[in-house]
């Protein structure tokens, strides 16, 4: 296990290095300069300012400098937010994004699983159709539509929840609900299909033949086996939440990372683009790693380190 983990960490670092390199050069292909008032400055003035940031150097030199700083954990200073360290910017904004993401993922997974299980057990009944209907709605309505609708009804008309801003738990409810819709829909659909398949398999028949109660079969044998494929989609869903949170953060005026990332690209804020890309990639790679570990826990048949014990 230790050896496997170490091996994986090395792969993860290599992946990150490749991502950083590709992003760096792709980013430099973006036209324009990172200066905020490019439209007000003359080319001479731009050259003066570029000099200070080393932007007049040849690209390979800039690349080596960047990697050097990166190796020391220095992500540089933002252009858009004069001289603010990028590390500080990410650290300050990740809290709300992470909280929302986690809440949405947990809520979405739990509700999704329950709905999926109910739908599978009460196969082809009113419950099943109800759950499927919810899933279709969850997938087809974009989160921002749902968010705007909730904001208007619950926030403005009924005044049950705060319209927007970020001042306490009650402020997280609507954004969490908006984000979790997609998760609920995906997980419940997946769970239903998997569970139905498992229920039809031989070992469930055997369990039934042994006289184990229906609930016993479902809890002990069926759900557990059905969970394995479900875990696979949690990784991609987490990423989906990360990107989905961008719109939701805007609608609910949440001080998160999403908008910052997008804005940095349109403003050519090189250091912030690199910083957030590396951060998001690292997070994504880490989630995949955790999911792989989880497989082994849920299904002992899967041996991560190539079957060795």
């Amino acid at each position: 296990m230790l050896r496997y983990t170490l091996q994986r960490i090395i792969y993860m670092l290599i992946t990150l290095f490749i991502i950083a390199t590709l992003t760096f050069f792709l980013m430099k292909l973006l036209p324009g300069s990172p200066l905020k008032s490019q439209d007000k400055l003359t080319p001479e003035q731009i050259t003066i300012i570029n000099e200070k940031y080393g932007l007049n150097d040849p690209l390979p030199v800039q690349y080596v400098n960047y990697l050097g700083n990166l190796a020391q954990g220095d992500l540089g200073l933002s252009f858009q937010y004069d001289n603010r360290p990028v590390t500080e910017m990410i650290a300050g904004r990740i809290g709300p994004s992470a909280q929302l993401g986690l809440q949405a993922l947990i809520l979405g997974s739990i509700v999704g699983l329950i709905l999926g299980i109910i739908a599978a057990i009460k196969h082809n009944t009113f419950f099943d159709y109800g759950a499927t209907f919810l899933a279709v709605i969850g997938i087809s309505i974009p989160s921002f539509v749902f968010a705007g609708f909730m904001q208007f009804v619950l926030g403005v008309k009924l005044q049950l929840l705060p319209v927007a801003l970020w001042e306490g738990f009650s402020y997280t409810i609507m954004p969490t609900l908006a984000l979790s819709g997609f998760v609920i829909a995906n997980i419940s659909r997946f769970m239903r299909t998997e569970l139905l398949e498992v229920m039809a398999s031989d070992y469930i028949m055997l369990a039934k033949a042994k006289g184990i109660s229906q609930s016993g079969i479902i809890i002990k044998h069926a759900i557990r086996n059905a969970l394995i494929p479900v875990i696979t989609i949690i990784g991609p869903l987490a990423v989906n939440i990360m990107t989905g949170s961008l719109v939701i953060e805007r609608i609910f005026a949440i001080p998160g990372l999403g908008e910052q990332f997008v804005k940095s690209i349109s403003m050519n804020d090189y250091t912030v683009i690199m910083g957030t890309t590396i951060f998001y990639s690292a997070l994504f790679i880490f989630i995949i790693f955790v999911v792989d570990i989880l497989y082994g826990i849920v299904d002992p048949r899967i041996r991560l380190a190539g079957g060795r014990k």
Partner: protein
Amino acid sequence: MNKKFSFLLVLVLALSTFLAACSGGGGDKASNESKSGSGDSKADSKKEQVLNLIATSEIPSMDSTLATDNVSFNVMNNVYEGLYRLDQKNEPALGMAAEEPKVSEDGKTYTFKLRDAKWSNGDAVTAQDFVFSWRRAVDPATAAEYAYMLYDVKGAEEINAGKAKPDTLGIKAIDDKTLEITLKNNIPYFKSLLSFATFYPQNEKFFKEQGKNYALEANTGVYNGPFTLSEWKHEQSFQLKKNPTYWDNAAVKLETINFNIVKDTATAVNLYETKKADRAGLTAEFVDKYKSDPNFGTSPDTSVYFLRLNEKNEVLANKNARKALDMAWDKKSFVDVILNNGSKPAYYLVPDKFAQGPDGKDFRETNGDLGKQDVEEAKKLWAKAKKEAGFDKVTLEMLNYDDDNAAKISQYLKEQLETNLEGLTVNIKPQPFKQKLELESKGNYDFSFAGWGPDYQDPMTFIDMFVTDGAHNQMGYSNPKYDKLVADAKGPLLSDLDARWKALLDAEKILMDDAAISPMYQRGTAYLQRDYVKGIVEHPFGGDFGYKWAHIE
């Protein structure tokens, strides 16, 4: 394994009950909060002089030397103060300066006496603070984008280009309270320039103590304006408090201004509706809904938008073709229908209600409208242009930004121009912000949607954009007569302000007569503001608002 699994199940169940409980409980609590909260804020603010506002982005910078954007300038205008501050009538009024300066006979040397003002940490504001800040701004090592704002000060341009040392800049502290400034030219708009952020003083001692952290947080900055920045939660909110050490604090009535950072207009409007914000800006789609609301208002801005007509294009090199293009579309309905936010159709370059001449008259009042919509005339000119330039059908590419608003503008123009000018096809080319600027500066476009906001309170900030080979010309326009008028207004005529004003008026006429650009509109903004908010002053340049005189009734 069974144990582990049941543990997992228990955990999941526990979490689910926890979350369910939270959302239920939280919901109730929130509803109480928001109900009582909204009631309170209304009652309290009437008593307590608290203004709740919305900022459209995080404050990019609180370092007055480095800032370049509206949100920063707006906050700075209220927490810092230069030698002058724009007053309620938008005229430069004494700020850190104790009295009007002594000006030398050639109009190039100003000697200021500073008043006994203090920074919010108790330090005195001294002449040295100005010297420090100005030198820092032009020092190429600072890489301040707005260094060029100081180019009218003697030596600034050379220092910024690295050809001279920062201490050769034309600013000297004679003693703690006396400041001597030497200009390159005797510009007439210097006083209003002094109210601009790049000209603010900076507390040198405090700056050096804070080092890299200077002005990055509320408590690593120091303030000499009507308010202080008392709290700054990045990307979330910030708060201004009345500054007890401000020299004119008796005039300041507001105790607190709360800003929440909200980027979405619909959200801002919803916050206004639930009384969490006292003012919200509106975009076109909200105007129809609120037009008859008694709290609805519009205010003119000083940014002017126009089409750059690139004369590198063979068709657009023809004056009649450019004229036809300008006359062929309906600016009035464009502004009323597409923008719908208090913007005005523009038949000019220099905005209305922006600068007054030596005669006390607004520039616009004297020059009036310099163009009109006339489809019949446009058709004739277009036919003439076809003969002169030898074309029958032509495709022109319209360069624009890639946002929703720009898309509507492009569609409208395409429809109007193609209908009214036979044989014209307009291809819309939406591009990301920076790419669009890049294409323009390289001249790789036919015509483009562009805008300009003033850097200082004088028509020159608009007019000198289009001199031959000017950095912002970007469309190959060149007229020697125009160049001469601009050069004169920047040089010999500085000592004869009436003649200079005339030169500027004439220059604009030439530009419009050449149809170098097709002016589109002067921007306005629509907003909702609670009726108990009084006295917010809107400024034509620099920070958008002055809260110094605002109060809650």
